[in-house]
């Protein structure tokens, strides 16, 4: 597919190395010569941003782990000691805690981009499913990390979320006791959460490798959703994509730094600066903002088991998108109806997020239920039916044509833009 120059070692050492471990040619073909569609827009930079965020979280997390103590009597104060006594400990901790939020900002944009441009469709199903697995791993890792400071919200979030498993008939209670390592959330729970919170990021890193591998097998999707046909449709990953990614990582870091240095506690909850107290329930238990849409779905359903099933389904259903969407056209650019339903879907998810932060009473519950219905109807009814009834717009014949003629398909009337030989 590439047709680009392959790596040819020049120095004697690299020639010697190439015959034994061809790591240089692997890097060369994966991150330098790798052909990327020339028409990728800035929404495609969030994959690189996510890789950057994973590294940020692992590096700050490893250093924080050198100073943190996973014990119910010491955890809160060890975090405060990081904030007060460790050199730049406040910076490490604020990068790490806000980094979790920005990791989720990036992943939500990344997922939304995939949904908009149909990146989940054939032949990218496995790539997409690996992405859903990565998102699930992030959710679990983020949750366990939130428990570690052992503040009031840490403790009660751990209690609420682990209690969800008690909804499972027959074995639920046993599972919860097993998860806790006791008969209540306590020291064994904190200890294992710490262990897993340290482990899972490396599992994520492993799945990221698979995700990138799958990506390089099938190639990137692009805003037209039309596969690259000739070499003119692609440019080399380096320097073209690298330069674009670097610029957006820079912009992303500006927003990230705004939160770290100026409003580091904006996304947190004040109650988490109160040490965990099993004897006192906070008036209003809320998860971190990035779980709020799913929390609203959970609370909207007046049966605990069904609520838990809906919560799990709301994430897992993403994995079935490649088969639920029956349309042959990938990009929402050429799917006027899908585009509208998708924007409503995005609004519904944001709306669920707001409702998840509010007290579950009166109109809020009714709204959460309506939004939940739309959430699932989007996947189970709208996606399959749209493919049958939607009249899509004509697709360009190739990426180059879309770039050269500003998206006008061959056969459409009108002259090409001035100065361009058609």
């Amino acid at each position, binding site marked *: 597919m590439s047709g680009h*120059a392959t790596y040819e070692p020049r120095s004697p050492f690299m020639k010697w190395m190439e015959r034994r471990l061809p790591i240089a040619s692997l890097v060369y073909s994966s991150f*330098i010569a790798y*052909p990327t569609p*020339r028409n990728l827009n800035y929404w495609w930079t969030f994959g690189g941003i996510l890789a950057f965020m994973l590294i940020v979280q692992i590096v700050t997390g490893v250093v924080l782990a050198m100073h943190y103590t996973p014990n119910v009597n010491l955890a809160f104060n060890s975090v*405060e000691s990081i*904030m*007060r006594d460790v050199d730049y400990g*406040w*910076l490490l901790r*604020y990068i790490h805690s806000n980094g979790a939020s920005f990791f989720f900002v990036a992943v939500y944009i990344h997922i939304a981009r995939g949904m908009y441009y149909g990146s989940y469709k054939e032949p990218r199903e496995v790539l997409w499913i690996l992405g859903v697995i990565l998102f699930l791993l992030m959710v679990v890792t983020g949750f366990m990390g939130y428990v570690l400071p052992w503040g009031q919200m840490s403790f009660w979030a751990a*209690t*609420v979320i682990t*209690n*969800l498993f*008690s909804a499972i008939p027959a074995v639920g209670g046993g599972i919860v006791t097993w998860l806790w390592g006791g008969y209540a959330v306590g020291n064994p729970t904190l200890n294992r959460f710490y262990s897993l919170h340290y482990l899972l990021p490396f599992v994520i890193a492993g799945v990221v490798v698979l995700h990138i591998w799958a990506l390089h097998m099938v190639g990137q999707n692009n805003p037209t959703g039309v596969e690259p046909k000739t*070499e*003119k449709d*692609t*440019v*080399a990953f*380096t*320097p*073209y994509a690298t*330069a*674009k990614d*670097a*610029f957006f990582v*820079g912009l992303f*870091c*500006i927003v990230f*730094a705004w939160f*770290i*240095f*100026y*409003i*580091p*506690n*904006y996304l947190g909850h*004040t*109650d988490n*600066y*109160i040490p965990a107290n099993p004897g006192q*329930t906070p*008036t*209003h*238990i809320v998860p971190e903002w990035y779980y709020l849409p799913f929390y609203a779905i959970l*609370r909207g*359903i*007046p049966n*605990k088991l069904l*609520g838990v099933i809906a919560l799990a389904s709301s994430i897992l259903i993403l994995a079935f998108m490649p088969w639920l969407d029956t349309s042959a056209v990938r990009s929402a650019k050429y799917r006027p109806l899908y585009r509208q339903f998708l924007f409503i879907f995005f609004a519904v998810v944001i709306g669920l997020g707001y409702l998840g932060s509010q*007290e579950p*009473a*009166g109109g809020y*519950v*009714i709204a959460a239920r309506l939004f939940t219905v739309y959430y699932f109807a989007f996947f189970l009814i709208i996606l399959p039916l749209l493919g049958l009834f939607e009249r899509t717009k004509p697709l360009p014949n190739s990426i*180059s044509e879309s*770039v050269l003629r500003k998206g006008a398909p061959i056969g459409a009337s009108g002259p090409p833009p001035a100065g*361009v*030989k058609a």
Partner: protein
Amino acid sequence: MTSHRELMTALVLAAAVAGTAIPARAQEAEAPPLQQWSFAGPFGQYDPEQLQRGFKIYREVCSTCHSLKLLSFRNLSDPGGPGFTAAQAAAIAATFQVTDGPNDQGQMFQRPGKISDYFPPPFANDQTARAALGGGLPPDMSTLAKARGYDRGFPWFIFDAFTQYQEGGPDYIHAILNGYADPPKDFALPPGTHYNKYFPGHAIAMPKPINDGQVKFTDGTPETVDQYGRDVAAFLMWASEPKLDERKRLGFQVMIYLIVLSGLLYFTKKKIWHEVELHPELEEPRAPTEYGR
């Protein structure tokens, strides 16, 4: 479905989910009036004189009941704090009695504080505090200013991200000290509590802690509850977030760096993509090794 039933369903569900009963929302409290803080905004820094006044109030009033366990006397001379010298901090430490031990005879003993000691708590343990104070437990003040706040509500919480409003804790603490009032006629105040306009539920266990003129200032600062509230709230903010000065100073440098870097990256990107965008039909794929030849 009636709204009453909806409410009940929601409450039952919330209780089931939490595995514990969540009390119905306490009566809505007034939003605290916003104060001017020297440490607000991108260039905000603590005012050492205000922190010293706040420390005086903590020491003479709050410390009777509230501990400050995470702070050490040495912190009083840390940069970005109240600005005491190390000698002054040691002198302050020496005025406190600290429990140390066990000594060679196996006994705990009292001695004057050293600069490396932490602020000694007013009560030996929570139970002693509750027994002495009629059941209420005064919270530790080390992280209090970050552990308190109030619901800003839509749309203010969105604006706050842009205006950098992070002073909900100090505003709330100032409001509580100024919020004591006679309860409205129809308000049933539980015994042992006091009416406060800004406290969620209005019934606060802490009696009005401070009155005009109670703490003497030597620099002519007004000796009013309003001023006391601001000063002690600023001190408690410093106690919760002692590295704020450093954070905002470093933040400005990082911002400048990132903006310049992003600008350079933008022009780099523009240069690299220039030919592709200008002559898309002429551009042949080239191996990066060919650049500059």
